[in-house]
């Protein structure tokens, strides 16, 4: 039960909104963080917490692309393929990942480590090609960089190549 595990956080979220339904998306994020995807029982519990019907929760969750209704790999790779990234080579990045991991869009590796999705614009057009893995952005990708990221993730679960607070271009040093 989410309420037993995240009681304080849920209370904090509910206190922010005068109308409880507003807490729906934040609570779905809590559920997704817990399991990696949103389970049916979590949806039912959230419906109960917010005094909604289960269909009201379901109609909302299915509108938004960031919620997984099925389990995904430990590292969910999302590569942007919109025009601005495509101009600077995002299709090649997708090919690299396909070759290196042996999976296509919508598939996961057999060990459950990586899933690949091809997505639309992630607001990093000046630093494309780019991808998001779980919560982190990786920008200005090259084949070398991609190799290092995948190796880092396999061995340590994180990579120092992820983006920090965004600024591009960097100020010129005088």
């Amino acid at each position, binding site marked *: 039960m989410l309420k037993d595990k995240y009681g304080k956080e849920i209370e904090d979220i509910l206190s922010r909104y005068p*109308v409880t339904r507003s807490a729906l998306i934040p609570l779905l994020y809590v559920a997704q963080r817990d399991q990696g995807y949103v389970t049916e029982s979590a949806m039912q519990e959230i419906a109960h917490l917010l005094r909604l019907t289960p269909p009201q929760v379901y109609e909302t969750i299915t*509108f938004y692309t960031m919620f997984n209704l099925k389990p995904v790999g430990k590292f969910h790779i999302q590569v942007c393929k*919109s025009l601005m990234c495509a*101009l600077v080579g995002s299709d090649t990045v997708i090919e690299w990942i396909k070759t290196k991991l042996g999976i296509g869009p919508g598939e996961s590796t057999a060990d459950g480590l990586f899933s690949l999705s091809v997505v*639309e*614009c992630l*607001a990093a*057009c000046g630093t494309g090609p780019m991808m998001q893995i779980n919560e982190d952005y990786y920008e200005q990708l090259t084949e070398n960089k991609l190799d290092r990221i995948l190796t880092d993730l396999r061995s340590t679960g994180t990579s120092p190549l992820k983006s920090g607070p*965004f600024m591009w271009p960097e100020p010129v040093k005088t």
Partner: protein
Amino acid sequence: MPKNELILLKNMMQPGYTGSLADYEKTGGYQALRNTLGKIAPADVTAIVRKSGLRGRGGAGFPTGVKWGFLPKDYQGPRYLCCNADESEPGTFKDRQLMERDPHQVLEGIVLACYAIGSETAYIYIRGEMVLGSKILEHAIGEARAAGYIGKNVLGSGLNVDVWVHRGAGAYICGEETALLESLEGKRGLPRIKPPFPATHGLYNKPTVVNNVETLANLPHIVNRGPEWFAAIGSPPKSTGTRVFCVSGHVKRPGNYEVPMGMTVRELVYEYAGGMRSDKPLKAFIPGGASAPFLTPAHLDVKLDFEHVAAAGSMLGSGGVTVMEEGTSMVWAALRLMEFFYHESCGKCSPCREGSSWLVQTMRRIFAKRGRMEDLETLLDLCKNIAGRTVCAFGDAEVAPIQSTLKHWRHEYVELINQAEAANLIKPEPVARR
């Protein structure tokens, strides 16, 4: 390198600037708030903003002070401010930088706006993918609350303002202000029919103002330095101030450049962004994000302000300038954008929902060299029946790439179709899937 005075990006360009409260205060941060609370009446703040000529930086370019003025004067009950940080227009990445590098500048703008419109609650609706940005904002709100800039009785003035970060969950349409409100209410992000406008019936049916991140970040500077100063920058009288342009595509130095409005595209692309990345010349550019029609090298001397870009047949939109070099297929480029719109259509209005799938299928067929000459008329006919016939502006946006590329580069379409006809490869296309 910057040839003009920076306003919004000034702090973050200083070496060692971290965006913390201490850093922001050192550069004069929160002075505008101190000088306003209890000293300038809320209505006068609105008057200052109106006088400055500040227009919305999200896309539509509506005058901010006028928007605030639409709120009912005598309404008893809560009002809301929503900061639109759902930045998801392809080609745009300025709000991300403003929030992640100088979050207090945005927060000060939010508190000033709340004071002006009499709101005690502000929600920052940030796009769900920007996890780092939402953490940075949460941290900054914590700092500002501890220092008394946010919370009960701000700086002892009696003003109460609460600011919350609300993450979206991956829907482009939620950048449309009424869809944003629906989403914030925990529903599917379907735009509302207007009127009534959010100014009277917004979040929870209460008077609401929705302003873009960049718009709000301008407020402290306008209050500090006066509306006359701001109104003199850029391309007065109608496009005042600076704009953070996001340059992407085939240029040497893509990125965010803050320049006064009214600068030409040529100057922005060749002097700031370093020109084209190779010796291939510029073939096409989009001046204001994916929703803006494509323009040609003949438009390089168009001034980047609301009026001049509109007169050239496009729009300034969100300030995302995407540059394409010679050799880029315009049919391919329009198809890529069309696929984006097809994926993001919310499904509320039939012309957009069904039309986007027709457009994508027809475009894919032409690009795969299976097109027919009558497809071109079909495209134009579809576009004509989508634009202006939907609840929100998405319908107008999704036809822009096709209409503009057909206008300027029709021969590329024709060439692909001629190749198809020569090879006699015309086969039925499988149904497109989202």
